[in-house]
Structures are given as structure tokens and as C-alpha cells.
């Protein structure tokens, strides 16, 4: 026990009781359950098949098989899928942020008939399970001849994210004093200038939170991509990496390497910005 806690200790002496030790072991045990499978995957991405299957299934690789990574990159289309994921995620993030910002500004600040109805209508989007409308969405995309380009995914992803991000922006906008805009108008600025020069910079914290949230959503999305993308050249990583679908793979080394490459951006983002990522991911809980 540390010194600061002496006052509490006087009242309630606490030792390393068996219960306490068991509790701490529980914390470590779950940390192992949570982390070891990922580490195990990292290990086998660097091993030979002989090591994975026979001599060393659990431990640290005896010699790093970077050749697995070379194979993942050259034989399994990973760079292509990676590039597609980057385009789709960045497209979704920019479009979602821009559209939601404009929409929430119009519904919170400006005056027009039906503004409350429009806001509530769009917020319906949060209660519709994506899975339930997959079939009509697929038919729609086909009829609109939207199939097989990047917009095939960017538009639905954006449409599904608007509800949530508009709600978040709406909350933030209400906390910005209206005097800021009044001053700008008096200086002769128009509404668009005011929006981009005054409002957008003031919403930076909300914007960065939503960039992280939307990026993670888009980067990892699976069901919509599965239904809408048939062209192999347009597959994003979650779709392209389906090694266990179709043929049975025995090339665990390259498969592990491909999965590590695919996880790299989000894991690095999380390790470096863990507070921001957790805040972004859990912002829904704070708003309800």
C-alpha cells in the first residue's frame, strides 16, 4: 500500500488477502485471454509451417520469416485490398463529416419550416439495423448502376453514418455561443464564410472524434461490402482476406502476415491515441 492511502488504511486495514490476489490474477488472466490470441497470430505470421504445425506452435519465432509478409503482399492481393480500404475509408470519412456538419448546422442554427422534423427523420438511421435492409440496398445499387466503383461503398457507408454524426455535431453546436456568428456577420461575412471560417474550426474536437469513429467503422465494415462488391479489384480488406472461404488454406504464415498488415493501421492508431479512440468509440454512450 502506498503512502497517500494511509488515512484510508487507518480506518480500514487492507492486506494482500487471498481474495485480493485471486482478483489480481483474474485481471491478468483476462488480459492474457484478450491479448495472447493476437500475439499468437503475430508469432505465426513470422514462422515456417514446420514451426507452426510441429515444433513450436506457441512460442516466439526462432527465426523471423519475413518471406511470409513478402508472399502476403505479392500473392494474395493485399496491397490492392489495402489501397481500396484506404480510399473507401477516407472517402467515407470526408463525405460523412462534411455532410453531417452542414446538416447539423442547418438544423440547429438556421430557421426554416420542418427543421425539427428533418433532424428527427434522419436520426431514425441510428435505430435501423444495417443488416435488415441489405437486400433492397443491393437491388437499389444495381438499378442505379452504381455497382463496382468506389462510390458503391462510400455512399451507403456515408448514408448510414450521417444519423449518428449529425446528432453528435448537433449537441456540440448548441454549446457554441451565437455571438461568434453575429460578430462575423457584422464584419460583413456571408453564411458560407462564417460556417467554414468560424463554426468548423470551433468544432475541431468533435470533428476529430468523429473522424476516428467513422474511420474505424468504414475500415472494418463487412456485411455491406459483402453484398455490394463482386469485383475482386474493388474488394476492401475485410472482404479480400477471407482465406477460409472457398479453399482451405495451409499457408498460415502468409495468412497471418496478411491479417497483421490489415490490422496495422487501426492497432497503431489505437496504441498511439488510445484515449481519443476510446472516447470516439464510446461517444454514443455519453450522448444517450
Amino acid at each position, binding site marked *: 500500500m502506498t503512502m497517500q492511502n494511509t488515512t*484510508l488504511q487507518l480506518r480500514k486495514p487492507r492486506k494482500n488477502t487471498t481474495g485480493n490476489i485471486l482478483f489480481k490474477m483474474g485481471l491478468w488472466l483476462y488480459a492474457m485471454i484478450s491479448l495472447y490470441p493476437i500475439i*499468437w497470430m503475430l508469432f505465426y505470421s513470422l514462422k515456417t509451417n514446420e514451426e507452426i504445425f510441429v515444433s513450436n506452435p506457441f512460442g516466439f519465432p526462432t527465426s523471423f520469416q519475413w518471406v511470409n509478409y513478402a508472399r502476403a503482399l505479392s500473392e494474395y492481393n493485399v496491397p490492392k485490398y489495402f489501397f481500396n480500404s484506404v480510399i473507401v475509408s477516407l472517402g467515407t470519412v470526408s463525405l460523412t463529416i462534411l455532410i453531417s456538419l452542414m446538416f447539423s448546422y442547418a438544423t440547429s442554427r*438556421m430557421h426554416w419550416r420542418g427543421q425539427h422534423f428533418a433532424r428527427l427523420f434522419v436520426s431514425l438511421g441510428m435505430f435501423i439495423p444495417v443488416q*435488415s435492409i441489405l437486400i433492397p440496398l443491393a437491388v437499389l445499387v444495381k438499378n442505379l448502376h452504381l455497382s463496382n466503383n468506389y462510390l458503391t461503398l462510400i455512399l451507403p457507408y456515408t448514408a448510414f453514418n450521417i*444519423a449518428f454524426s449529425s446528432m453528435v455535431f448537433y449537441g456540440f453546436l448548441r454549446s457554441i455561443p451565437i455571438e461568434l456568428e453575429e460578430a462575423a456577420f457584422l464584419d460583413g461575412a456571408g453564411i458560407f464564410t462564417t460556417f467554414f471560417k468560424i463554426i468548423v474550426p470551433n468544432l475541431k474536437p468533435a470533428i476529430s472524434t468523429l473522424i476516428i469513429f467513422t474511420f474505424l467503422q468504414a475500415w472494418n465494415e463487412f456485411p455491406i461490402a459483402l453484398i455490394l462488391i463482386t469485383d475482386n479489384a474493388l474488394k476492401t480488406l475485410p472482404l479480400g482476406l477471407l482465406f477460409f472461404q472457398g479453399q482451405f488454406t495451409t499457408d498460415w504464415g502468409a495468412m497471418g502476415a496478411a491479417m497483421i498488415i490489415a490490422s496495422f493501421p487501426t492497432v497503431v492508431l489505437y496504441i498511439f491515441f488510445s484515449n481519443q479512440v476510446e472516447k470516439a468509440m464510446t461517444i454514443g454512450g455519453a450522448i444517450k
Partner: protein
Amino acid sequence: MKRYFANKKAIAVFVAPALLLFLIMVFYPLTQMFVKSFYAWNGLSTGKFIGLDNYIRLFDDTVFQTSIKNGLIFSLFITVFQISIATVLAIAVSNIKIKGRNFFRIAYFLPVVLSITVVCQLWLSVFNSEYGMLNRLFELLHMDYAQDWLSDRHKSIYVIAFVNAWQYMGYHFALLLAGIKSIPKDYYEAAQIDGASTVEAHRKVTLPLLSETYKFCLILSVTGGLNAFTNMYIMTGGGPGTSTYTLTYMMYSSAFRAYEYGYGMSAAAFLVIECLIATLVINKLVARERITY
């Protein structure tokens, strides 16, 4: 000032993209889903109105019954697993006396940021009957539990649910941890002065004050479980047989494998209603508990 905020052109420019995109990509498909669930439709022509036939067929379909049951099992399993473990871990990590809190936080949350494809395939390799980590571990420990984890008709749904629970436990953990941090410290000090033990203090202070967070967690995990699809799509393909079908999976296979779009939509419509009921029930139940406190 009014002149600026009532600028019609600006309003149109600001509102149109969001409204149009939402109308076309979300709302229109939603109405189509309900409308076409009353049609015999193969996705190409306009289809034929058949009234309630799809729904009547649905309730006689044994695959539908399996799907409903699996949705409930999946929901219950992940809800209990995630929320109970997340509660204990969040309370532990919020305690400043625990060493390595940052490490624990990252360890528990990391699976959340992985793609579901990566997680499913990672666990497929863990559960692999010949080379998987789990069976090898049992072998190493001379325990007799080694088996083909995903080919048992009764067990595989739990195995898949575990994988989902493993991935998203950290999400609930982070939600609860953020909630606990927002509770003023005085509450705990007061409880301590009253002679409450740590466990008691958390039961009397933390849990009631976090009822809003718990409501959110419950809605998320229950509807997430009812909607489950990707986990079974990647890990079992709905099998063995149809034993790991869920409503979404059933919808997917009726539409894209049997080309019975209308029938698939009736399953989807049922799913939407199921999720709606679950959300309403949770809202009611949790609200009532707050009043007693």
C-alpha cells in the same frame, strides 16, 4: 441576423445532401423491405403480391425457428459475458491502486479495433481441430478436451458467440469505465465512512448511477446478438447443416442463394420488429429500476 439564418439557398445547400442520401440509401430500402415482404419476388421483376404468404411460410419453417433460437442464445450469451466481465474489469481498472492500469485498459480494448474478418479467422485458427492453439494446449496439458469445435450442431453457436463476446467485451468495458470515472469521488468516500465494503460501495453507488450506461450496453449487445451475421458467415457458413443460422443469415441465404428475395425480406422485417421490441423492453425495465433507487 435573421437574414443570414433564413438564407434559403444556404439551407438548401446544407440540408439537401444529407436528406437525399438518407432518403435514397436508407429510408427507401427500409420501406422496400416491408413492402416486398408481401411479395413473391426474385429481385428482378416487380414481383407478385401474395399477402401474408411469406409470413405464414416463415412460421412453419424449421430454419426460421432455429434462427430465432440462435439469435436469442447469441444475444443472451454475449450480453451476460460482456456486461458481467466488463463490470468487474472496469471497476478494477478505475481503482487507482491497481498497478498497470494503462496496460490492462489497452489489453482489454484492443480486440475492438480489429476487423471482424481478422478476429473470426484468428479464432478459426485457434479452434482448428488439427493445428489449432486450443487443441494443442489441451494436448500439452494432457487434458481430454480436444475436439472439432465448430462441427458440433449444439456447441458451435456458443463457440461463435464466444468469439463475438471476446471481440466486443472491451467496448462495454470502455463505456462502463468512462461512466465510473464520471461519478464524483465523494460518493465513495461517503459510502466508506458509512462502513460499506468496496464491493458494497460499488453495488450501492456505481451500479445505480450507471443505469443509463447499462441501458446503452444492454441495447447494444442484445440487438447486436439478434442481428448476428458476420461471425457465422465467416466461421461456419451457417452450418453444420443450418444449426448456426440467424435471421440475418436466413435472409442472406434466401435472397442471394435461393433468389427468394420476398421471403428473405419477411425474415428481415421480423428482425427489425424483434430489435424494436427488445429496445423498448430494455428502456422500460432499466427505467423502472432507476425509480426504485
